């Protein structure tokens, strides 16, 4: 990014830019050389930025009308739904926006896994991404508590109780988290405060995420290092801007469908019952995007080990750049890894499914096998694969196949378009 010798044309611009180089930054962002072979899986970064901004804007508006009090929260949400001008629209965008955010982030993460975007020199981008993902889960969980419905209350009870698994100090920590001896008003007010804070932390981390990205530049479907700028790159504006914009619009159509025609399908009916500490719902289930981890938690018979397994399932991703020993980034040139990749995708979907089911009988067995496989993938398969796998020959540049490159590569690209 330092190869810019940008100088604004106008005198005023030069004066300003010498004191605060915002124009240099703007120029960098528009000129930023981007690999020209990025496919649509690469548009989810922009989509995620859109999701974050949408959540912040709708969230701020909701916060103007919401009352964080155990006796009034449920009623204030109904007030928003009924009496606030377009309150129903704002709330449904915010509630479904959380689901859309996670849908996009899962695609973004699995894109990274497929094309090896987490590998050197992009480890820091990846680790910041994992921290963002963790914060997203915290924000989503606390946001789900705010309407103070039955699932809010009991979800909060179950999740905060996980901390009681910590030896010796566990119970004390839970009381401290609750601000009392059960989930109650103090819990609600602090969750509201944190739910308000976290998105801005995420915003800060997103800026670092993009900054770290702009140092080495984007990975690409071929997964090779490219010269920038060169025949292999296009300037971010207008090429990537319009492509991201097109993908974002497609995404928004899906988003709008949920908001306008199925706004409650992703939620749980019990959350329209006001929180009642005396009545426990038949099944306490988290939102769909947390289900795989919920399944891992429940598949371990011991409470403490269950919590450890669940946390490890996420934190293991942070060390992924060092667990994956293969020098080749893109799965396009890793025939074995590609198969294991799709098995992992299926494994996580299965975990999500059994996470929604009662933890008993066959479901529990499946959850255990799937949990074991999840860890096997990262701890055994990936490290070993790097040494054992016979990878396909990798091209020297992106333009090579386009300008009539090697037959091997043409085959690889065919395969690639199949999974696209």
């Amino acid at each position, binding site marked *: 990014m330092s190869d810019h010798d940008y100088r604004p044309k106008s005198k005023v611009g030069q004066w300003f830019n010498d004191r605060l180089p915002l124009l240099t930054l703007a120029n960098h962002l528009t000129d930023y050389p981007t690999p*020209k*072979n990025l496919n*649509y*899986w690469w548009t989810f970064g922009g989509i995620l930025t859109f999701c974050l901004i949408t959540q912040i804007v709708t969230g701020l508006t909701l916060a103007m009308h919401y009352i964080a009090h155990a006796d009034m929260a449920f*009623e204030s949400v*109904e*007030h928003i*739904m*009924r009496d606030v001008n377009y309150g*129903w*629209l704002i709330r*449904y965008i915010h509630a479904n926006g959380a*689901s859309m955010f996670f*849908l996009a982030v899962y695609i973004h993460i699995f894109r990274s896994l497929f094309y090896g975007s987490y590998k050197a020199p992009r480890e820091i981008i990846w680790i910041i991404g994992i921290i963002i993902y963790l914060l997203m889960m915290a924000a989503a969980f606390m946001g789900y508590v705010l309407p103070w419905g039955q699932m809010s209350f009991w979800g909060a009870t179950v999740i905060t109780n996980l901390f009681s698994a910590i030896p010796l100090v566990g119970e004390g920590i839970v009381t401290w988290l609750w601000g009392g001896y059960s989930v109650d008003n103090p819990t609600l007010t602090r969750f509201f405060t944190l739910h308000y804070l976290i998105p801005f932390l995420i915003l800060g981390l997103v800026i670092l995420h993009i900054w770290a990205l702009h140092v080495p530049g984007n990975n690409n479907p071929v997964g090779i290092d490219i010269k920038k700028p060169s025949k292999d790159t*296009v300037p971010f504006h*207008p*090429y990537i801007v*319009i*492509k991201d*914009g*097109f993908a974002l*619009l*497609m995404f*928004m*159509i*899906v988003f*709008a*469908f949920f*908001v*306008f*025609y*199925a*706004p*409650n*399908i*992703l*939620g*749980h*009916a*019990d959350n*329209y*019952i006001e929180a009642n500490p005396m009545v426990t719902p*038949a*099944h306490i*289930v988290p939102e*769909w995007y947390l*289900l795989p981890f919920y399944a891992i938690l429940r598949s371990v018979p011991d409470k403490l080990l269950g919590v450890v397994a669940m946390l490890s399932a996420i934190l293991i991703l942070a060390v992924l750049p060092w667990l994956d020993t293969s020098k080749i980034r893109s799965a396009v040139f890793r025939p074995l890894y590609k198969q294991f990749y799709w098995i992992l995708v299926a494994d996580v*979907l299965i975990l*999500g*499914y059994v996470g*929604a*089911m009662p933890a008993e009988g066959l479901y529990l067995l499946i959850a255990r096998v799937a949990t074991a496989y999840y860890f096997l993938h990262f701890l055994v398969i990936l490290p070993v694969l790097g040494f054992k796998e016979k990878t396909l020959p990798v091209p020297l540049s992106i333009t090579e196949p*386009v300008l009539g490159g090697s037959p091997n590569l043409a085959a690889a690209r065919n395969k690639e378009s*199949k*999974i*696209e």
Partner: protein
Amino acid sequence: MKNLFKLFSIIILIITSNSYSFAAEKVEYLKTDWSFKGLFGKFDRASLQRGYQVYTEVCASCHSMKYLSYRNLAEPGGPEFSEAQAKAIAASFEVTDGPNSDGEMFTRPGKLSDKFVMPYDNVKAAQAANGGAYPPDMSVLVKARGGGVDYIYSLLQGYEEAPSNVSLDDGVYYNKYMYGNKIRMAAPLSDGLVEYGDGTNATVEQMSKDVTTFLMWSAEPHLESRHQMGFKAITYLIILTILVYFSMKKIWSRVESEV
């Protein structure tokens, strides 16, 4: 591109089927055609008005509807009673107000701005009057039950003699759609229970449909404007997407790479 769309639909299918699978019980609910379903779904105005009549004459003696105000009855997208009718409905209820300048609470006839008067002062009073069972508030009831409108519609018609192997306590009834089949509410509807002003035959089926429609509106009072806006928003997005697609093709035609 096409594949991307395919994947999108698959993911959505998985998500939705997932959330369905634990929300729905095994029983098959009774089906009827709801006018408010679908892209252009709207409430049947006459059915809403009849539904309000069933609610107020039958349900309201036990079930509160505390998030609704009488003014809602005259608002667009609802039963759309005339303002005079809604005022008359409100005035037929006694509302406790105050304290006045002497520090006393007093009662007065209801106004449009008042919330629906509750049959009991609090949950405890409601439980005491109903053998320990709390008749749930009906404001968002259809959204608070897994099967939604179909569940409520079926439940109202699901009363039957208990099978011989099921023993029922006093004040407990058998309903084939209720979770666990045991319900503390006696069959609330019977043919001809209310007399519809528009001459519609008040069968149990008709009343169930009307009151369920009314409950759908009470839970989603802005459903009609949501559907209308949704159609406009999605149409707009589709047109814009097509325009952006061709702009993108044009811009990318300058580089020898495909989008």
